[in-house]
C-alpha cells in the first residue's frame, strides 16, 4: 500500500514539474547560500573565540612598521637595529610570565634545509599558554614538541640558537596557535620549540626583529609599554600597540551585525518562500480533491492520504535542495556543520507544510 501511495505522490509532483522545479530550485539555492554564509560565520566566530583568553588577560599585540630602505637606522639593509636594552626589557617581562613572543615565518632564512623543511614555530615564555588554548606544553624549557600529524615521521635533531632539539612530546590534536595578526595557525604538522627568554639574544637580526613584532604583553604597565615602543622605534622598528580586547570586540560586533543580517534575511526569505509554497500546495490539492475523494471511497485510510501528500511536499522541500547540500556536506569542514543546521531548517519547513496541507486535505475529503 505504501508503495502505491509513494508513487502516487511522485505522480502529483511529476504532473506539476515546472512548479516543483521552480520552488524547489529556489529552496535549493537559498539552502546552499545559507550554508555557505553560516559556515563562514561559524569559522570567524571560532577564530575570535580562540583569542578569548588573550582578551581576558588584557593582551597588547603590535603592528609593525619596518625601516624604510636606505634609512640611517638600518645601515646593513632593511633589518632594524633595536638596542639590547629593549630586548632585555622584553626578556624580563617574558621571564616574569607577563609576556610571550614567537617566531613563525622568518626562521633560519639562509638555511634551506632547516628542520628538513618542516614548519617550525619558536615560542618564548610560559605565558604563551594563552595563545595555545587546550594544549599541554613540554617542560622543562628548552624543549621541542611535534604536531600530531608528524607522528611516525623520523625527525632528525634540529639545531637552533646554539642548542639541539629532538621533539620528544606530541601536541594533542587539534592544536592551534592563536596569533593576533594571523588569526589561528593550525599546528598539526608543525614542530614547536620552546626557548628561555635569554635566548632572545641568540637570534639572528631577522629572527630578532620578528620576535619583537610578534611579542604580546599581558596587561602591561604604561611605562613598560612606552619604554618597549620607544626602544624599538629608536632601532628603526615602529611597533604600534593594539589592545586585543578593544580591537576584537569591534571586529566581533561587525561579524555579529553582518551575520545577524544574513541569518534574519534568509529567515525572512525562507518564510516568504514557505507561505508561497504552502499556498501553491493547497491549490494543487484542491485540484486533486476529486481524485483523493475517489481514493477515499475505495477504502484509502487517512494515513495513506498523509503519505501521498507528504511525498509530494517532500520532493520540493527535501529532495531537490538535498542534492547541492549533499555535495557541500561531502566537502567536510567547515561546511559540514552548517549544512546540518540548514538541513534541519529544511526538515522543519517540510513538516510544517506537510502538516498544514495534509490536515486540510484529510478534513476536506472526509467532510465531503
Amino acid at each position, binding site marked *: 500500500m505504501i508503495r502505491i501511495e509513494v508513487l502516487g505522490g511522485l505522480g502529483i509532483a511529476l504532473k506539476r514539474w515546472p512548479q516543483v522545479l521552480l520552488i524547489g530550485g529556489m529552496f535549493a539555492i537559498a539552502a546552499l547560500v545559507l550554508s555557505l554564509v553560516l559556515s563562514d560565520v561559524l569559522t570567524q566566530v571560532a577564530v575570535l573565540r580562540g583569542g578569548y583568553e588573550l582578551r581576558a588577560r588584557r593582551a597588547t599585540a603590535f603592528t609593525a*612598521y619596518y625601516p*624604510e630602505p636606505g634609512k640611517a637606522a638600518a645601515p646593513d639593509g632593511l633589518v632594524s637595529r633595536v638596542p639590547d636594552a629593549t630586548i632585555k626589557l622584553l626578556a624580563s617581562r617574558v621571564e616574569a610570565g607577563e609576556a610571550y613572543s614567537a617566531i613563525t615565518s622568518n626562521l633560519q632564512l639562509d638555511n634551506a634545509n632547516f628542520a628538513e623543511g618542516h614548519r617550525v614555530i619558536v615560542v618564548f615564555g610560559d605565558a604563551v599558554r594563552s595563545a595555545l588554548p587546550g594544549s599541554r606544553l613540554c617542560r622543562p624549557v628548552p624543549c621541542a614538541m611535534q604536531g600530531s600529524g608528524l607522528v611516525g615521521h623520523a625527525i632528525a635533531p634540529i639545531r637552533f640558537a646554539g642548542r639541539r632539539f629532538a621533539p620528544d612530546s606530541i601536541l594533542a590534536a587539534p592544536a592551534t596557535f592563536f596569533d593576533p595578526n594571523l588569526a589561528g595557525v593550525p599546528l598539526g604538522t608543525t614542530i614547536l620549540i620552546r626557548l628561555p627568554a635569554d635566548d632572545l639574544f641568540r637570534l639572528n637580526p631577522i629572527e630578532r626583529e620578528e620576535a619583537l613584532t610578534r611579542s604580546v604583553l599581558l596587561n602591561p604597565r604604561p611605562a613598560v609599554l612606552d619604554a618597549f615602543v*620607544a626602544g624599538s622605534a629608536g632601532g628603526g622598528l615602529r611597533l604600534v600597540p*593594539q589592545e586585543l580586547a578593544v580591537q576584537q570586540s569591534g571586529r566581533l560586533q561587525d561579524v555579529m551585525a553582518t551575520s545577524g543580517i544574513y541569518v*534574519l534575511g534568509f529567515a525572512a526569505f525562507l518564510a*516568504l518562500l514557505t*507561505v508561497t509554497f504552502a499556498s*501553491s500546495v493547497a491549490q494543487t490539492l484542491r485540484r486533486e480533491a476529486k481524485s483523493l475523494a475517489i481514493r477515499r471511497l475505495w477504502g484509502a485510510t487517512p494515513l495513506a492520504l498523509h503519505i501521498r501528500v507528504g511525498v509530494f511536499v517532500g520532493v520540493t522541500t527535501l529532495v531537490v535542495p538535498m542534492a547541492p547540500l549533499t555535495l557541500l556536506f561531502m566537502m567536510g569542514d567547515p561546511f559540514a556543520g552548517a549544512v546540518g543546521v540548514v538541513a534541519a531548517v529544511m526538515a522543519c519547513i517540510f513538516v510544517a507544510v506537510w502538516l498544514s496541507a495534509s490536515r486540510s486535505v484529510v478534513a476536506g475529503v472526509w467532510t465531503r
Partner: protein
Amino acid sequence: MRIRIGVTCFLLGTLTFFFGWSIDRSLVNRSTAAFGMTGTVQTVTVTTSTQAVDAASAQEAARAARRFLVAHNISVIIASVGDGEPSMIVVDPARRVPWLSPIRDSRGSVRGIYLFNGSYSAARWRAVSSVPLLPSVTAVSGFVDPPRDPERPGFTLQYVRPLPTLFPTGNYVFGGASQSDMSRFQAILSRQGLSAGPIFSTPLIIDIASTPFVVITALLLSSGSVATAGYWSLLLSKRTAESAIHRVYGATTKRLIIRLVLYGAPSVLMGLTGGTVAASIFVRLLSGAPLATSHLMVLLASLTGGVVVVLAVWTGATVSHALKAGGDR
C-alpha cells in the same frame, strides 16, 4: 487577505532594509578605503625603484611634483603601508578631504604633527607629553579626528605630518586627477627614484555590485519579491469568481484593478513600514553603533524604494488577475 498581504510585506520590508543597509555599508567602505577623499579617486602603491638617483635631482623632482599638484588642483593622501612612520601625509589644495579642514592651511597643506584622536600616540601625548613612536619629536601641533575608527581593526596610522622634502613610499590616493595627470605625476615621481604600481580606480556602480554583502541581499530581495508575486497571484485566484461578478455588473478592467490596488495598498504600506523599522532596530542593536542621521536616511530610502517596488508588484498581480477574471466571463 489584508493580513496576509501585510505579513508578506513586513517580511519584504526587512529584506528591503537589509539591501539598503548593505549598499550604505559598501559606500562607507569605499569612502574609508579612500581615507575620506570625496569624488572619484585613483589609488596607486608607490615603492622605491631600482634605478639610482642622485640627491640633487631627487630634490628637484620632488619640488616639481609639489608644484604639479598645486597647479593642477590635485589632492593626494599618502598613507604608510608597513614601513617608515605610521603616519599619513595629505596635500589638499582643492579641499576634497573633509576631515582635514580643521588643520589645513590656505594652500591645502598641513604644518606640524597632528595626532589622530583615539590612537595610542594621542593617548600617550595627553598623558605624558611624549610620543614613544616618535622619540625625537618634542612638539605636537594638535589632534585631528581620523578618517577611520581606530578601535576597528586595520587602522594603525597614528598622525598626520607635513610633506617631507622627498615624497615617501606608500599608498597614494589621488582626488581630481585625470588619466593624463596621473601618468605625468608618475613620470615626475620616477625622477625622484620612486616607481608606481598599477592605477586602481573602480567606478562606483561596479564597486557596489562587486560587494558580496550587496549581492546576497539583492538576491534575497529579488527572489523574495518573485516568491511574493507568486503568493499574491495565488491569493487573488481565490477571488476570481467575485471579480467575474463585478465584471458582469459593468466594472471595466481599469476599475477592477484600481479597486484591488486600493484594497491592498494600506496593508502594503503598513507591512513595509513595520518591516523596515523592525529591521533597522535589529541592525542598530547588533552593530551597537550610535543612532546616526545616515541610519535614518537608509531607513527612509529603503522604505521609499520598497513602497515603489512592492506596490508595482501588487499592481502587476492585480492586473494579471483582472485580465484573467475578464477571460473567465
